[in-house]
């Protein structure tokens, strides 16, 4: 037996030799780990974002960006989410499109005419699908009939309702062949209206109105839009590669007809994440060309002398009342009291403190266009002043009208995002102080909040509304009694009458007057209490020009973007 010359009770020497043994094991583990990582990387290479040339690659004329989430699918007729809209805005084009200043320009249609009873679109000869086929009027007829087909179950079918019979078809009352749209020949698309629709030109720029080639659609066996190879494109870019959940690569579409869009050879949406901090890190590291900035990030951004820009994202947030009969909030004096006891300035400037947010003062956001100018310049909203004294008087009148000893707790339904919870807590404190009202906050996740809104289990709900198309009507018809999105069931003949004028009036001035009236009714009848208009501060790589963030349409827009080298 080997005899060691170290005393066996020596802790020190035991530790030393055990430590040596441990170091040997650690070395083994390290080697094993390294070889394992190597093997894994071979596997992962097939599921990843691949190599990227950094934020702006001048040599290859390409940029790298992010998507906020994986597009659920890219079937334009059924898409409902912001991410899909961004992708579709680059790879597809409708009859009409927007230029870089949000003015309507010709798209697939080189000419069009909107009349009282319908519209005609003349489709350009040179419009091609990415497979080389011509884009024809039949592609639009097929696409639109498919959208209203109840079997398609498109959630955006309502946006086609101005077309004759569209509503009845979605209700299953008429066959889809009865839709008021017809391809007279390959080049001419005739549309019949259900009622005069003077804003129809703006509607056809929306995603749900995009064309679809019947032959190709049928060849995909129900998988249209599920993957890059199950789509054909008619926009300035095509989806070259789509790795689900990881990345998407758009390449310039050689068959696109115009030269006013699509100046980049490649757009690489290399990262899919909602994490704004992660995006900022990627931007700082020179991996992506643009990102949003939250208030706490601004000091650092200014210190670095970044060019900071801001944009309204289009959405208006408001307190929506439950107008159903029997609710306390059905009482006008009560709503008026709540209106007078608050001011959105305080909410935005003292509570939310997001630099790019604006205090909301109307149902119509600040960027909506009027006749010759901004709508709110032409039709200024009624000036709101905080007046707690008057608010208390109205509250007392409400109490008497309702025959109440004391008001029960008011149920404030709200989403589970930090900002809606923060807002609700602010109102809870505010109404307690100013009116002595007890607010019970009911925090729910997205789907459950919608369920409770739809069934009317709330007094007040923290809600928001974003635009679908660039016309005041996208906000203006919200409180029509027949609008399913009017989940507080506001019902006023005066409002309905104005919405009808806004929908069908051909004289632009009279039509805008109706929106002015709607704005007035919303304030005077206290249909809602405006909270804030959401905006973003954002930063763009100085080499990338012509990049847009939009209030309506795709939230990010590279259609007019190009690269310009910067001299240091």
């Amino acid at each position, binding site marked *: 037996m080997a005899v060691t010359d*170290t005393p066996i009770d020596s802790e020190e020497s035991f530790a030393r030799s*055990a430590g040596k*043994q441990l170091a040997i094991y650690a070395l083994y583990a390290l080697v094993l780990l390294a070889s394992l990582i190597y093997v*894994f990387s071979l596997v992962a290479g097939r599921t990843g974002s691949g190599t990227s040339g950094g934020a702006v690659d001048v040599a290859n004329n390409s940029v790298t960006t992010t998507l906020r989430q994986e597009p659920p699918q890219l079937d334009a007729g059924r898409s409902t989410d912001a991410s899909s809209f961004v992708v579709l805005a680059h790879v597809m084009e409708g009859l009409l499109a927007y230029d870089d200043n949000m003015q309507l320009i010709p798209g697939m249609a080189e000419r069009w005419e909107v009349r009282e009873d319908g519209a005609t679109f003349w489709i350009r000869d040179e419009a091609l699908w990415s497979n080389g086929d011509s884009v024809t009027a039949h592609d639009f007829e097929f696409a639109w009939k498919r959208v209203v087909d109840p079997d398609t179950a498109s959630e955006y079918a309502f946006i086609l309702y101005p077309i004759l019979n569209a509503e009845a078809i979605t209700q299953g009352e008429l066959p889809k062949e009865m839709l008021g749209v017809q391809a007279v020949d390959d080049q001419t698309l005739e549309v019949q209206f259900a009622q005069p629709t003077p804003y129809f030109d703006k509607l056809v720029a929306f995603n749900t109105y995009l064309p679809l080639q019947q032959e190709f659609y049928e060849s995909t066996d129900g998988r249209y839009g599920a993957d890059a190879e199950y789509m054909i494109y008619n926009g300035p870019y095509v989806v070259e590669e789509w790795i689900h959940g990881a990345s998407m690569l758009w390449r310039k579409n050689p068959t696109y007809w115009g030269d006013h869009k699509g100046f980049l050879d490649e757009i690489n949406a290399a990262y*899919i*994440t*909602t994490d704004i901090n992660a995006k900022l*890190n990627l931007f700082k590291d020179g991996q992506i060309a643009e990102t949003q900035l939250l208030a706490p990030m601004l000091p650092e951004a200014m210190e670095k002398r970044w060019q900071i820009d801001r944009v309204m994202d289009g959405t208006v947030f408001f307190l929506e009342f439950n107008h159903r009969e029997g609710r306390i909030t059905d009482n006008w004096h009560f709503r008026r009291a709540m209106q007078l006891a608050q001011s959105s300035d305080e909410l935005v400037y003292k509570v939310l403190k997001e630099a790019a947010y604006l205090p909301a003062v109307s149902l119509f956001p600040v960027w909506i266009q009027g006749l010759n100018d901004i709508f709110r310049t032409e039709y200024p909203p009624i000036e709101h002043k905080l007046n707690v004294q008057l608010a208390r008087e109205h509250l007392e009148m409400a109490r008497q009208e309702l025959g109440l000893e004391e008001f029960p707790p008011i149920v404030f339904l709200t989403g589970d995002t930090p900002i809606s919870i923060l807002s609700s807590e602010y109102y809870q404190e505010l109404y307690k102080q100013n009116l002595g009202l007890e607010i019970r906050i009911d925090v729910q996740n997205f789907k459950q909040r919608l369920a409770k809104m739809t069934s009317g289990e709330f007094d007040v709900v923290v809600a928001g509304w974003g635009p679908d198309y660039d016309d005041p009507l996208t906000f203006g018809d919200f409180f029509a009694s027949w609008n399913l999105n009017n989940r507080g069931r506001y019902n006023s003949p005066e409002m309905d009458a104005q919405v009808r004028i806004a929908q069908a009036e051909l004289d632009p001035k009279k039509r805008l007057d109706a929106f002015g009236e709607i704005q007035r009714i919303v304030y005077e009848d206290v249909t809602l209490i405006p909270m804030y208009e959401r905006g973003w501060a954002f930063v763009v790589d100085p080499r990338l020009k012509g990049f847009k963030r939009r209030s309506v349409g795709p939230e990010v827009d590279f259609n007019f973007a190009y690269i310009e080298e910067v001299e240091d």
Partner: protein
Amino acid sequence: MTRSNMWIFILKRLVQGIFTVWFIATATFFAMHNVPGDPLLNDRATTEAIRANLQAKYGLDKPVTTQYVIYLGNLVRGDLGISFTQENREVNDIIRDHFPVSAILGILAVIFAAAGGVLWGALTAIYRNRWPDYVIMFLVILGISVPSFVVAAISQLLLVNVNDLFGTTVLPVAGWGTVLHMLVPAMVLGLGTMAYLTRLMRSSMLEIVSSDFVRTAKAKGVPPARIFAKHQLRNAILPVITVLGPSIAAITTGGFVVELVFAIPGLGRYFVQAVQQLDYTVIMGTTVFYGAFLVFMVIVVDVLYGFIDPRVRME
């Protein structure tokens, strides 16, 4: 004798496992259908007709018990259905595309955690109550108590600064695809488990250091390196192996935050999003898949145990 015993043991555990998975499937199914909220509601309100068509498409128009029977039938055939939110993707595809990513990240994190845990644990035991012990145990407490989203965010920021310092991308800040993309996320993901394993290893070592057979070995004059390797380490590592199986499952399925921060296309994100969106088929699919995975890992560990510890095989 021992070999056939082993097979019977595995078979028994498998049958138990199938029952467990069935139970998970059933419980999830009914829990999900009783969660308030309506999966078909969305921002833009739809008409009754469109709603009815959506319900028919996903089989929600049938009574819940019928849905359950159909669901179980499909499950046995391995068909998990089509996602509610990603309407053109089968849940099977989602799992096939994204589980490997989570698995790679998870396995790497576990190896990292296990190797680190054993190493640091053994080290602290050897240097008990001396400064290496104090330093490591302090870090361990930190590792256990700081949540992973903080660690993830800080380490990402650190990466940016490191890259900035070197003027080139030493390690990518986010994304997936190469070795370099994996290192930091795996470390972040494995950190909590590593800290836990370090503590486990330490106490397990300390117990064995003072046991009779170690004293005997020392008395016999066995070389210290051999005592450490064969008597102490091998015995002390057993509890670590025990928790390794569940740890692999927990890490692989719990990578949501890390996947989000580092923009990694793993399954964790889909799982969490599905719950938020009440995407019934994806919730069911991922839960059952994860459940089966967990059960499988536990069985593997039980079998593995038999190889490492001869005493288990004897019983």
